[in-house]
């Protein structure tokens, strides 16, 4: 077996060094020493996320399996890992997304020991049936908590309208009934398959030494069960939407409207970053604060600060989402649709692209402001096979012509609306203060 080697790379904006390596057992490693910072953050991520619904042996996984496993990983025979971190003044955390599951610690001292703990914890699943039963109740309360979150519910309704069969239609945590089908055997099978070293990515940023990170990784991560090399089985998903419009009544004070544009998922790597950057510039120029459509709707009194747009491309799905709390659902839909059509006709100007580019660069600079955001950025890039300078280079290549072409592509994609209505007793329409401004279209 060859000795792992560190390769030095450089983040293009603040010119910070980033070291890459692969551990002896195949885990991808990225290390960013951050001189001047006292804190260290490490993130260990598996490619396994909520949209992975099958094991290689054909077994189907209930919705919420990746998230359930995330809850159980820090549970150990001699106590839980959170307690170990707490005792050292470190902080442990974990999260699950559609496409990956990540385990995190931040600390101010003793980072090597904390890294050993993290790698050791994720290498072995040490739970019994009682742990599974207990955690099922806790996760049940987490699901209930999100059921009371109108934003999350509105977003889920939109995903269920946009997608026909794709597992992204399911809540990441599953449902109270789906998690009943998750048992110890299943969790063991998932762990053995998707938590093998070659399916893991480790990013460490802060007060660290790259060669020590590599040494700790080599010492603590063993091949164990070999596991399959991770390859996401693309879900069969038609290009069209399941429903063009869904409506639901939620306990909210004002209606919320969600518009989704279902994109064709890009391949990981360069195509993905190009798409993300160009779509990001489209959304910035039109929907961000001061954007062309945002400004028009704001001046017309149709929207407020709840107006928001985002683009998500992850786990074999891609869509743009525009949402707002509004007083008048029909007026908002009509005007948003008209402004979008006008923008498609007129195109995006070079001045708009330049302004959006500056904002995007500022946003990227913020990611370098601490070990946590830097480590998150490194992990996201590794999971999606994106180079350190890819986004900045793509921003440099963006032009009004290319951004306009992306806008036209996106606007032509199948779309779905999710309308979350307020109960009849809500205070909708009660926001008038005095007469409307002169000349206001309201």
């Amino acid at each position, binding site marked *: 077996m060859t000795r792992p080697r560190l390769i030095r790379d450089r983040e293009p*904006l*603040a010119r910070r060094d980033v070291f890459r390596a692969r551990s002896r057992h195949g885990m991808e490693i990225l290390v960013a020493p*951050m001189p*001047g*910072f*006292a*804190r260290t953050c490490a993130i260990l991520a598996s490619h396994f996320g909520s949209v992975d619904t099958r094991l290689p042996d054909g077994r189907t996984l209930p919705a919420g399996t990746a998230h359930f496993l995330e809850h159980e990983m820090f549970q150990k025979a001699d106590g*839980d890992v*959170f*307690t170990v971190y*707490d*005792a*050292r*003044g*470190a902080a*442990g955390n974990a999260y699950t997304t559609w496409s990956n599951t990540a385990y995190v610690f931040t*600390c*101010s*001292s003793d980072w090597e020991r904390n890294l050993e703990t993290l790698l050791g914890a994720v290498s072995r699943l040490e739970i019994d049936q009682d742990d599974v039963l207990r955690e099922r*109740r*806790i*996760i049940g*309360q987490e699901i*209930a*908590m999100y*059921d*009371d*979150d*109108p934003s999350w519910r509105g977003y889920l309704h939109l995903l269920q309208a946009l997608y026909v069969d794709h597992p992204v239609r399911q809540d990441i945590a599953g449902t109270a009934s789906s998690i009943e089908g998750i048992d110890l055997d299943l969790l063991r099978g998932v762990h053995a398959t998707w938590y093998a070293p070659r399916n893991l990515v480790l990013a460490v940023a802060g007060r660290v030494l790259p060669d020590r990170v590599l040494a700790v990784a080599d010492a603590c991560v063993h091949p164990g069960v070999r596991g399959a090399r991770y390859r996401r089985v693309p879900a069969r998903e038609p290009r069209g939407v399941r429903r063009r419009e869904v409506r639901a009544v939620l*306990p*909210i*004070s*004002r209606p919320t409207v969600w518009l989704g544009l279902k994109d064709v998922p890009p391949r990981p790597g360069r195509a993905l970053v190009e798409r993300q950057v160009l779509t990001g510039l489209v959304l910035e120029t039109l929907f*961000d*604060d*001061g*954007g062309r459509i945002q400004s028009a709707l704001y001046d017309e*009194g149709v929207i*407020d600060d*709840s107006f928001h747009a985002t683009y998500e491309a992850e786990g074999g799905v891609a869509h743009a989402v525009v949402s707002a709390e509004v007083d008048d659902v029909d007026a908002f839909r009509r005007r948003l649709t008209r402004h979008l059509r006008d923008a498609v006709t007129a195109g995006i100007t070079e001045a708009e692209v330049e302004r*959006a580019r*500056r*904002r995007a*660069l*500022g*946003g990227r*600079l*913020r990611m*370098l*402001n*601490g*070990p946590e955001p830097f480590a998150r950025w490194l992990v996201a890039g590794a999971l999606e096979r994106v180079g350190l300078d890819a986004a900045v280079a793509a921003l440099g290549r963006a032009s009004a012509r290319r951004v306009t072409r992306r806008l036209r592509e996106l606007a032509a994609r199948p779309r779905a609306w999710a309308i979350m209505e307020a*109960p009849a007793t809500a*205070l909708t329409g*009660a*926001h008038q*203060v*005095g007469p409307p*401004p*002169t000349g206001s279209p309201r």
Partner: protein
Amino acid sequence: MAQVAGPIVPVTREVAPGVRLHLLSTDRFTTALCRVVLHRDLGAEATATSLLALVLQSATGRHPTRRALAHALADLYGASLQVTVSKAGARQLLISTLEWPTLGVPDGRRRGGGRLARGLALLGEVLARPKRQAGRGSGPLDADLVRTEQVNLLRMLCSLADDKPRRAWVRCVEEACRGEPFALEALGRAKAVGAATPAVLAELHARLLATAPVDVFLVADVGIREAVAVVRKHLLWPGRAQLSVRPPVASAARPARARPRRVVEEDDVQQGQLVFAWRSPVRADAALLPAAAVLAGVFGGGTYSRLFQVVREKHALCYHADAQWIAAQGLLLAQVGVEPADEPRTRRLVQGLAREVASGRLDPVALDAYRAGVRAQVATLGDDRAAWLAWLQGRTTLGLDPDPVRWADAVDRVTPARVRRVGRNLRLEVSYALLPRGSVRRGP
């Protein structure tokens, strides 16, 4: 003694009458951050002040539309601006924050000017030169702008109830602090929005700029002499009253009422929200404050705490459970989200754990973890500007020593006997429950 890397205690100077500049000089960040905090009483003008925040954030005389102001921020490589209100004890804070890139962008580090000055100048413009009627330099604020933001404020106030855990928390505080300023929502009240006219806001704005105590927090790669000069030149406004005003201590601790109250309300929720408020007459500036913080930390400060370990980990009754000490009010607040049928059992468990900790029986694992957490937080405070600002703003608002190392040392010295002294006077004031409709048993 707690160990730290790099400076975490600010250098403080009075740069104008009643205006204190707190500088954290550091080169580790790619962006500069400046926050201006204007102090005022939390009371009758709370709604007008929160409306003023929205108006200031939307436009200035020079950038008279929201779009124009957004473009100015974009030109600073995506500067982010937030003008908002918050509350601390009997105090309302009008808080304006700007963060903007200074490293990795053209002119980023040019001394005496460049992007640092441009950012401060824009923040000064937002604060001191609002958009007025007919583009004038004085007089009422722009009527159309005020009307738009009145509607937006009403919408915001209305939407607060959509966040059910937050709603439960706010209702418990209202009940626990009835008759005190702290019971008031920092954003104010819907019924007072209409009275905040352009003329009222202009007068309020002028008065605040002239007389309100002001704290300016700056995190940037700049020395104190240059910071004082650049803040005076670009950020500060003319017309400060010639008096040196220091904000009074915002603390308003008092003993609990004789009998605790139980409040149960219903809403369209899946999960029951339980919120508890206990009181102990420990003022923010009392020597017992570190002991009160330890009490709250061991009780519900993290995953090591008794609430988390017993209610969640042992009995699997909840997903989230936490507690905190509100120093300005001498309040211990705890919140747990549970299956509605488990509400009585959880309530008994939580109150039992509060009694356990208040009696000075401190779980050694939780105590060590809380102390270690405080030390770690102090050690890395200079890495995290949001945490640094929160710490410093909280301490200056309460008139407390801003040195976090001394705070960590004080926490280390807390003994069970000191916690018991706090706990001896800790009384449940309100037990609040927000439950699904139809789940509350009615009397005959």
